[in-house]
Protein backbone atom coordinates (compact mmCIF):
# COMPACT_ATOMS: atom_id res chain seq x y z
CA UNK A 1 0.00 0.00 0.00
CA UNK A 2 1.25 3.46 -0.83
CA UNK A 3 1.91 6.00 1.85
CA UNK A 4 -0.86 8.52 2.28
CA UNK A 5 0.26 12.00 1.51
CA UNK A 6 -0.46 15.43 2.84
CA UNK A 7 0.32 18.43 0.66
CA UNK A 8 1.25 21.51 2.64
CA UNK A 9 0.26 24.68 0.82
CA UNK A 10 1.21 28.28 1.49
CA UNK A 11 -0.93 30.94 -0.14
CA UNK A 12 -1.56 34.64 -0.18
CA UNK A 13 -4.48 33.97 2.18
CA UNK A 14 -3.38 31.32 4.62
CA UNK A 15 -2.00 27.80 4.70
CA UNK A 16 -3.85 24.69 3.58
CA UNK A 17 -3.36 20.99 4.26
CA UNK A 18 -4.59 18.75 1.44
CA UNK A 19 -4.79 15.08 2.32
CA UNK A 20 -4.78 12.33 -0.29
CA UNK A 21 -5.99 8.76 -0.38
CA UNK A 22 -3.74 5.73 -0.90
CA UNK A 23 -3.80 6.13 -4.69
CA UNK A 24 -3.22 9.88 -4.80
CA UNK A 25 -6.60 9.96 -6.52
CA UNK A 26 -8.93 11.86 -4.21
CA UNK A 27 -7.91 14.80 -2.08
CA UNK A 28 -9.46 16.64 0.82
CA UNK A 29 -8.74 20.34 1.37
CA UNK A 30 -8.49 21.81 4.86
CA UNK A 31 -7.96 25.53 5.44
CA UNK A 32 -7.35 28.37 5.37
CA UNK A 33 -5.06 27.90 8.36
CA UNK A 34 -2.74 30.32 10.19
CA UNK A 35 -5.62 32.79 10.49
CA UNK A 36 -5.47 33.56 6.80
CA UNK A 37 -2.04 35.21 7.02
CA UNK A 38 -0.02 35.44 3.82
CA UNK A 39 2.18 32.34 4.08
CA UNK A 40 5.27 32.14 1.87
CA UNK A 41 6.45 28.70 2.89
CA UNK A 42 5.07 25.62 4.63
CA UNK A 43 7.48 22.82 5.40
CA UNK A 44 7.71 19.67 7.47
CA UNK A 45 10.17 18.80 10.21
CA UNK A 46 10.52 15.05 9.83
CA UNK A 47 12.42 14.74 13.10
CA UNK A 48 9.51 16.08 15.17
CA UNK A 49 6.49 15.70 12.91
CA UNK A 50 5.82 19.43 13.09
CA UNK A 51 4.47 21.53 10.26
CA UNK A 52 6.21 24.89 10.09
CA UNK A 53 4.79 27.88 8.23
CA UNK A 54 6.57 31.16 7.57
CA UNK A 55 4.86 34.36 6.60
CA UNK A 56 3.80 37.76 7.71
CA UNK A 57 0.58 39.58 8.43
CA UNK A 58 0.20 43.08 7.00
CA UNK A 59 -1.07 44.10 10.44
CA UNK A 60 0.75 41.86 12.88
CA UNK A 61 4.15 41.35 11.28
CA UNK A 62 6.28 38.31 10.59
CA UNK A 63 6.11 34.98 12.40
CA UNK A 64 6.78 31.30 12.11
CA UNK A 65 3.78 29.12 12.81
CA UNK A 66 4.01 25.56 14.16
CA UNK A 67 1.52 22.71 14.29
CA UNK A 68 2.21 19.38 15.94
CA UNK A 69 -1.04 17.75 14.83
CA UNK A 70 -0.94 18.09 11.03
CA UNK A 71 -2.51 21.51 11.04
CA UNK A 72 -5.38 21.02 13.49
CA UNK A 73 -3.97 23.49 16.01
CA UNK A 74 -1.25 26.10 15.67
CA UNK A 75 1.00 28.32 17.71
CA UNK A 76 3.20 31.07 16.39
CA UNK A 77 6.26 33.01 17.45
CA UNK A 78 8.53 35.82 16.37
CA UNK A 79 10.41 35.96 19.66
CA UNK A 80 13.90 37.06 18.62
CA UNK A 81 12.96 37.45 14.96
CA UNK A 82 14.30 40.99 14.80
CA UNK A 83 17.34 42.99 13.78
CA UNK A 84 16.91 45.00 16.98
CA UNK A 85 15.30 48.35 17.62
CA UNK A 86 17.99 50.12 15.61
CA UNK A 87 17.75 47.74 12.67
CA UNK A 88 15.38 47.49 9.73
CA UNK A 89 11.87 46.22 10.23
CA UNK A 90 11.30 42.64 9.12
CA UNK A 91 8.34 42.42 6.76
CA UNK A 92 7.80 38.70 6.41
CA UNK A 93 9.31 35.21 6.56
CA UNK A 94 10.07 33.69 3.16
CA UNK A 95 11.48 30.29 4.03
CA UNK A 96 11.39 27.98 7.02
CA UNK A 97 13.48 24.81 6.87
CA UNK A 98 14.31 22.28 9.57
CA UNK A 99 17.41 20.09 9.64
CA UNK A 100 19.74 18.51 12.18
CA UNK A 101 17.68 19.79 15.11
CA UNK A 102 17.67 23.42 13.98
CA UNK A 103 14.91 25.40 12.31
CA UNK A 104 16.17 28.06 9.91
CA UNK A 105 14.16 31.05 8.73
CA UNK A 106 14.91 33.41 5.85
CA UNK A 107 13.32 36.83 5.96
CA UNK A 108 12.84 40.13 4.12
CA UNK A 109 14.94 42.27 4.31
CA UNK A 110 17.40 39.50 3.70
CA UNK A 111 18.75 37.72 6.72
CA UNK A 112 18.93 34.32 8.33
CA UNK A 113 17.62 33.31 11.73
CA UNK A 114 17.92 30.04 13.61
CA UNK A 115 15.86 28.36 16.29
CA UNK A 116 17.15 25.53 18.40
CA UNK A 117 13.89 24.99 20.25
CA UNK A 118 11.57 24.14 17.38
CA UNK A 119 10.65 27.69 16.41
CA UNK A 120 9.70 29.05 19.83
CA UNK A 121 12.62 31.48 20.04
CA UNK A 122 14.95 32.80 17.34
CA UNK A 123 18.43 34.24 17.07
CA UNK A 124 19.93 36.22 14.22
CA UNK A 125 22.79 34.66 12.24
CA UNK A 126 24.69 37.92 12.19
CA UNK A 127 27.60 36.80 10.01
CA UNK A 128 25.52 36.81 6.82
CA UNK A 129 24.54 40.47 7.18
CA UNK A 130 28.14 41.21 8.20
CA UNK A 131 29.36 39.90 4.84
CA UNK A 132 31.46 42.51 3.00
CA UNK A 133 29.02 42.45 0.07
CA UNK A 134 26.07 43.53 2.17
CA UNK A 135 26.29 47.34 1.66
CA UNK A 136 25.73 46.66 -2.04
CA UNK A 137 22.74 44.33 -1.67
CA UNK A 138 19.67 45.73 -3.41
CA UNK A 139 16.22 44.24 -3.79
CA UNK A 140 14.73 42.36 -6.73
CA UNK A 141 11.10 42.48 -7.81
CA UNK A 142 10.08 40.34 -4.86
CA UNK A 143 12.01 42.44 -2.38
CA UNK A 144 15.36 41.81 -0.71
CA UNK A 145 14.44 38.38 0.51
CA UNK A 146 16.34 35.34 1.69
CA UNK A 147 14.09 32.75 0.10
CA UNK A 148 16.17 29.60 -0.29
CA UNK A 149 17.73 27.52 2.49
CA UNK A 150 19.45 24.22 1.71
CA UNK A 151 20.86 22.26 4.64
CA UNK A 152 23.68 19.84 3.87
CA UNK A 153 22.32 16.31 4.26
CA UNK A 154 25.10 15.09 6.56
CA UNK A 155 27.03 18.04 7.92
CA UNK A 156 25.00 20.29 10.25
CA UNK A 157 27.60 23.03 9.91
CA UNK A 158 27.05 23.39 6.17
CA UNK A 159 24.18 25.34 4.67
CA UNK A 160 23.48 27.16 1.41
CA UNK A 161 21.21 30.19 1.23
CA UNK A 162 19.89 32.20 -1.70
CA UNK A 163 18.99 35.90 -1.74
CA UNK A 164 17.18 37.57 -4.64
CA UNK A 165 19.41 39.94 -6.64
CA UNK A 166 22.37 39.03 -4.42
CA UNK A 167 23.04 35.35 -5.09
CA UNK A 168 24.03 32.18 -3.29
CA UNK A 169 26.14 31.86 -0.15
CA UNK A 170 27.47 28.88 1.75
CA UNK A 171 28.49 28.52 5.36
CA UNK A 172 30.70 25.61 6.34
CA UNK A 173 31.00 26.52 9.99
CA UNK A 174 27.42 26.64 11.23
CA UNK A 175 26.84 30.26 10.26
CA UNK A 176 30.02 31.80 11.69
CA UNK A 177 31.16 32.82 8.20
CA UNK A 178 29.63 32.85 4.70
CA UNK A 179 31.22 32.63 1.26
CA UNK A 180 29.73 33.64 -2.10
CA UNK A 181 28.77 30.83 -4.49
CA UNK A 182 27.98 32.53 -7.81
CA UNK A 183 30.87 31.81 -10.14
CA UNK A 184 29.64 31.07 -13.65
CA UNK A 185 26.14 32.48 -13.13
CA UNK A 186 25.01 35.25 -15.48
CA UNK A 187 23.59 38.61 -14.42
CA UNK A 188 22.43 40.15 -17.72
CA UNK A 189 21.11 43.21 -15.90
CA UNK A 190 24.58 43.98 -14.49
CA UNK A 191 27.39 45.82 -16.33
CA UNK A 192 29.66 42.87 -15.53
CA UNK A 193 27.66 39.85 -16.72
CA UNK A 194 29.51 37.55 -14.33
CA UNK A 195 29.95 39.54 -11.11
CA UNK A 196 31.07 38.05 -7.82
CA UNK A 197 27.57 38.70 -6.45
CA UNK A 198 24.38 40.40 -7.57
CA UNK A 199 22.99 37.42 -9.45
CA UNK A 200 19.26 36.94 -9.01
CA UNK A 201 18.86 33.39 -7.78
CA UNK A 202 15.22 32.36 -7.82
CA UNK A 203 15.46 28.86 -6.40
CA UNK A 204 18.06 26.16 -5.79
CA UNK A 205 17.92 22.54 -4.73
CA UNK A 206 20.38 19.84 -3.73
CA UNK A 207 20.20 16.78 -5.97
CA UNK A 208 18.98 13.83 -3.94
CA UNK A 209 21.57 11.50 -2.54
CA UNK A 210 24.40 13.88 -3.28
CA UNK A 211 26.37 16.14 -1.02
CA UNK A 212 27.67 18.65 -3.57
CA UNK A 213 25.38 18.69 -6.63
CA UNK A 214 23.19 21.74 -6.75
CA UNK A 215 20.69 22.90 -9.36
CA UNK A 216 19.61 26.52 -9.66
CA UNK A 217 16.82 28.35 -11.48
CA UNK A 218 18.05 31.89 -11.86
CA UNK A 219 16.61 35.11 -13.29
CA UNK A 220 19.12 34.47 -16.10
CA UNK A 221 19.20 30.77 -16.81
CA UNK A 222 19.29 27.34 -15.24
CA UNK A 223 22.53 26.06 -13.73
CA UNK A 224 24.19 22.96 -12.26
CA UNK A 225 27.06 22.81 -9.81
CA UNK A 226 29.02 19.66 -9.02
CA UNK A 227 31.16 21.28 -6.36
CA UNK A 228 28.74 22.65 -3.82
CA UNK A 229 28.23 25.92 -5.66
CA UNK A 230 31.88 26.89 -6.04
CA UNK A 231 31.31 26.92 -9.81
CA UNK A 232 28.20 26.68 -11.95
CA UNK A 233 27.58 25.43 -15.50
CA UNK A 234 24.62 26.78 -17.46
CA UNK A 235 22.13 24.07 -18.52
CA UNK A 236 19.38 26.26 -19.96
CA UNK A 237 19.86 24.46 -23.28
CA UNK A 238 16.62 23.95 -25.19
CA UNK A 239 14.34 25.48 -22.58
CA UNK A 240 11.94 28.08 -24.00
CA UNK A 241 13.12 30.71 -21.54
CA UNK A 242 15.95 31.30 -19.13
CA UNK A 243 13.47 32.73 -16.60
CA UNK A 244 11.41 30.86 -14.03
CA UNK A 245 11.07 30.18 -10.35
CA UNK A 246 10.03 26.68 -9.32
CA UNK A 247 12.31 23.66 -9.26
CA UNK A 248 11.94 20.16 -7.85
CA UNK A 249 14.22 17.16 -7.64
CA UNK A 250 13.52 13.43 -7.91
CA UNK A 251 13.50 11.56 -4.57
CA UNK A 252 15.93 8.85 -5.69
CA UNK A 253 17.44 9.82 -9.07
CA UNK A 254 19.71 12.86 -8.79
CA UNK A 255 19.75 13.39 -12.58
CA UNK A 256 15.99 14.02 -12.69
CA UNK A 257 14.44 17.39 -11.95
CA UNK A 258 11.48 19.52 -13.01
CA UNK A 259 11.08 23.25 -13.64
CA UNK A 260 8.41 25.58 -15.00
CA UNK A 261 9.90 28.20 -17.33
CA UNK A 262 8.10 31.54 -17.56
CA UNK A 263 8.20 33.82 -20.57
CA UNK A 264 10.60 36.38 -19.14
CA UNK A 265 11.18 39.03 -16.50
CA UNK A 266 9.88 41.85 -18.68
CA UNK A 267 7.26 39.93 -20.66
CA UNK A 268 4.62 39.36 -17.99
CA UNK A 269 6.16 36.46 -16.09
CA UNK A 270 3.63 33.85 -17.16
CA UNK A 271 4.09 30.55 -18.95
CA UNK A 272 5.38 30.97 -22.53
CA UNK A 273 2.58 31.61 -25.07
CA UNK A 274 0.09 31.21 -22.19
CA UNK A 275 0.41 27.43 -22.63
CA UNK A 276 1.34 25.71 -19.38
CA UNK A 277 4.12 23.16 -19.30
CA UNK A 278 6.50 21.54 -16.89
CA UNK A 279 9.95 20.70 -18.24
CA UNK A 280 11.81 17.63 -17.03
CA UNK A 281 15.42 16.60 -17.30
CA UNK A 282 16.58 13.04 -16.75
CA UNK A 283 20.23 13.75 -17.44
CA UNK A 284 21.05 16.51 -14.98
CA UNK A 285 20.11 19.27 -17.40
CA UNK A 286 21.86 18.10 -20.55
CA UNK A 287 18.43 17.87 -22.19
CA UNK A 288 14.88 18.90 -21.34
CA UNK A 289 11.46 17.45 -22.19
CA UNK A 290 8.25 19.50 -22.35
CA UNK A 291 5.36 17.93 -20.39
CA UNK A 292 1.89 19.39 -20.80
CA UNK A 293 -0.69 16.58 -20.84
CA UNK A 294 -3.57 17.74 -18.70
CA UNK A 295 -2.28 21.29 -18.28
CA UNK A 296 -4.07 24.27 -19.89
CA UNK A 297 -2.70 25.01 -23.36
CA UNK A 298 -4.35 28.32 -24.07
CA UNK A 299 -5.11 31.52 -22.19
CA UNK A 300 -3.05 30.38 -19.21
CA UNK A 301 -1.69 33.67 -17.94
CA UNK A 302 -0.24 32.21 -14.79
CA UNK A 303 3.03 31.42 -13.05
CA UNK A 304 4.42 28.80 -10.71
CA UNK A 305 6.43 30.55 -8.04
CA UNK A 306 9.66 29.55 -6.36
CA UNK A 307 8.40 27.32 -3.55
CA UNK A 308 5.31 26.12 -5.38
CA UNK A 309 6.61 22.73 -6.54
CA UNK A 310 6.95 19.54 -4.51
CA UNK A 311 7.88 15.97 -5.30
CA UNK A 312 6.73 13.06 -3.16
CA UNK A 313 8.85 10.01 -2.34
CA UNK A 314 6.63 7.36 -3.92
CA UNK A 315 7.45 5.26 -6.99
CA UNK A 316 6.69 6.56 -9.53
CA UNK A 317 7.24 9.95 -7.98
CA UNK A 318 4.34 12.37 -7.74
CA UNK A 319 4.95 15.97 -8.69
CA UNK A 320 2.78 18.86 -7.46
CA UNK A 321 2.69 22.45 -8.68
CA UNK A 322 0.64 25.36 -7.41
CA UNK A 323 -0.15 28.28 -9.66
CA UNK A 324 -0.49 31.98 -9.11
CA UNK A 325 -4.11 31.48 -10.20
CA UNK A 326 -4.82 29.20 -7.23
CA UNK A 327 -4.90 25.86 -9.03
CA UNK A 328 -2.94 22.96 -7.60
CA UNK A 329 -1.97 20.36 -10.19
CA UNK A 330 -0.64 16.88 -9.47
CA UNK A 331 1.05 14.19 -11.52
CA UNK A 332 1.30 10.56 -10.40
CA UNK A 333 3.65 9.60 -13.23
CA UNK A 334 6.62 11.89 -12.79
CA UNK A 335 5.12 14.66 -14.90
CA UNK A 336 3.88 12.70 -17.93
CA UNK A 337 0.27 13.67 -17.17
CA UNK A 338 -1.38 16.16 -14.89
CA UNK A 339 -4.76 16.92 -13.40
CA UNK A 340 -6.07 19.50 -10.96
CA UNK A 341 -6.20 18.60 -7.26
CA UNK A 342 -7.74 21.88 -6.06
CA UNK A 343 -8.92 24.60 -8.43
CA UNK A 344 -10.00 27.60 -6.41
CA UNK A 345 -7.35 28.26 -3.80
CA UNK A 346 -5.83 31.70 -3.25
CA UNK A 347 -2.65 32.43 -5.23
CA UNK A 348 -0.27 29.61 -4.28
CA UNK A 349 3.18 30.51 -2.99
CA UNK A 350 4.48 27.16 -1.69
CA UNK A 351 3.86 23.42 -1.93
CA UNK A 352 5.43 20.63 0.10
CA UNK A 353 4.54 16.97 0.37
CA UNK A 354 4.80 14.69 3.35
CA UNK A 355 3.94 11.04 3.97
CA UNK A 356 1.49 10.75 6.82
CA UNK A 357 1.28 6.97 7.07
Amino acid sequence: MADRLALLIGTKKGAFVITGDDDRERWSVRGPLCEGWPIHDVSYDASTGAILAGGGSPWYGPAVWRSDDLGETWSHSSDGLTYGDDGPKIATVWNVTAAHGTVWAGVDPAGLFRSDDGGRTWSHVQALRDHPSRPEWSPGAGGLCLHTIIPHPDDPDRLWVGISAVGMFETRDGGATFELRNKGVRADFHPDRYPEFGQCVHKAILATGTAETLLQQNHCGVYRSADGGRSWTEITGSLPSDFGFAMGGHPTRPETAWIVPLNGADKGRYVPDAAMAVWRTRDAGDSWQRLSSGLPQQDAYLAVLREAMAVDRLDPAGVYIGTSAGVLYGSRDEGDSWRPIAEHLPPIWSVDSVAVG
Partner: protein
Amino acid sequence: MATVHLPRSLVALFPGAPRTVEVEGDDVASVIAALDGGIPGLRDRLVDAGPVLREHINVYVDGERATLRTPVARDSVVHVIPAVSGGSADPAGAGA
Protein backbone atom coordinates in the same frame (compact mmCIF):
# COMPACT_ATOMS: atom_id res chain seq x y z
CA MET B 1 -6.77 50.00 35.78
CA ALA B 2 -7.17 50.85 32.11
CA THR B 3 -9.64 48.89 30.06
CA VAL B 4 -8.17 47.59 26.80
CA HIS B 5 -10.31 46.36 23.91
CA LEU B 6 -8.51 43.98 21.55
CA PRO B 7 -9.56 43.13 17.98
CA ARG B 8 -10.88 39.71 16.99
CA SER B 9 -8.03 39.09 14.55
CA LEU B 10 -5.48 39.63 17.32
CA VAL B 11 -7.03 37.48 20.04
CA ALA B 12 -7.52 34.74 17.45
CA LEU B 13 -3.74 34.35 17.44
CA PHE B 14 -3.77 33.50 21.16
CA PRO B 15 -6.38 30.80 21.90
CA GLY B 16 -8.30 31.64 25.06
CA ALA B 17 -7.30 35.31 25.12
CA PRO B 18 -10.15 37.69 26.04
CA ARG B 19 -11.34 40.58 23.89
CA THR B 20 -11.32 42.97 26.85
CA VAL B 21 -8.56 43.17 29.44
CA GLU B 22 -7.99 45.34 32.52
CA VAL B 23 -4.31 46.19 33.00
CA GLU B 24 -2.05 48.64 34.82
CA GLY B 25 0.13 51.04 32.86
CA ASP B 26 0.89 54.72 32.65
CA ASP B 27 1.45 54.86 28.90
CA VAL B 28 0.62 52.76 25.86
CA ALA B 29 4.02 51.04 25.92
CA SER B 30 3.58 49.90 29.51
CA VAL B 31 -0.02 48.84 28.86
CA ILE B 32 1.19 46.65 25.98
CA ALA B 33 3.98 45.28 28.19
CA ALA B 34 1.38 44.39 30.82
CA LEU B 35 -0.78 42.72 28.18
CA ASP B 36 2.24 40.71 27.04
CA GLY B 37 2.70 39.45 30.60
CA GLY B 38 -0.68 37.77 30.47
CA ILE B 39 -0.67 36.94 26.75
CA PRO B 40 2.97 36.10 25.88
CA GLY B 41 3.89 37.14 22.38
CA LEU B 42 1.19 39.80 22.04
CA ARG B 43 3.69 42.68 22.12
CA ASP B 44 5.46 41.32 19.03
CA ARG B 45 2.18 41.49 17.12
CA LEU B 46 1.65 45.18 17.92
CA VAL B 47 5.15 46.67 18.23
CA ASP B 48 7.82 46.83 15.54
CA ALA B 49 11.51 47.71 15.72
CA GLY B 50 12.10 51.22 16.98
CA PRO B 51 10.14 50.52 19.06
CA VAL B 52 7.03 51.89 17.35
CA LEU B 53 3.52 50.64 16.84
CA ARG B 54 3.32 48.51 13.69
CA GLU B 55 2.46 50.54 10.60
CA HIS B 56 -1.10 49.25 10.27
CA ILE B 57 -2.01 49.07 13.96
CA ASN B 58 -3.95 51.97 15.42
CA VAL B 59 -4.25 52.54 19.16
CA TYR B 60 -6.69 55.02 20.65
CA VAL B 61 -6.62 56.24 24.26
CA ASP B 62 -9.96 57.70 25.33
CA GLY B 63 -10.83 58.18 21.68
CA GLU B 64 -7.62 59.93 20.64
CA ARG B 65 -5.04 58.39 18.30
CA ALA B 66 -2.01 57.32 20.37
CA THR B 67 1.63 56.35 20.11
CA LEU B 68 3.63 54.16 22.47
CA ARG B 69 4.41 57.25 24.56
CA THR B 70 0.82 58.46 24.96
CA PRO B 71 -0.14 58.64 28.66
CA VAL B 72 -2.80 56.28 29.96
CA ALA B 73 -4.88 57.16 33.04
CA ARG B 74 -6.20 54.67 35.59
CA ASP B 75 -9.70 54.94 34.12
CA SER B 76 -8.69 55.20 30.46
CA VAL B 77 -10.28 53.15 27.73
CA VAL B 78 -7.81 51.87 25.14
CA HIS B 79 -8.83 50.49 21.75
CA VAL B 80 -6.45 48.49 19.57
CA ILE B 81 -7.76 48.52 15.99
CA PRO B 82 -6.21 47.09 12.83
CA ALA B 83 -6.06 49.86 10.24
CA VAL B 84 -8.13 49.60 7.09
CA SER B 85 -4.90 50.28 5.21
CA GLY B 86 -3.44 46.97 6.31
CA GLY B 87 -5.68 44.88 4.13
CA SER B 88 -3.81 45.38 0.90
CA ALA B 89 -1.89 42.63 -0.81
CA ASP B 90 1.39 41.57 0.72
CA PRO B 91 3.85 44.08 -0.77
CA ALA B 92 6.50 41.39 -0.79
CA GLY B 93 4.38 39.45 -3.27
CA ALA B 94 6.31 36.54 -4.59
CA GLY B 95 8.44 37.98 -7.32
CA ALA B 96 5.98 37.58 -10.13
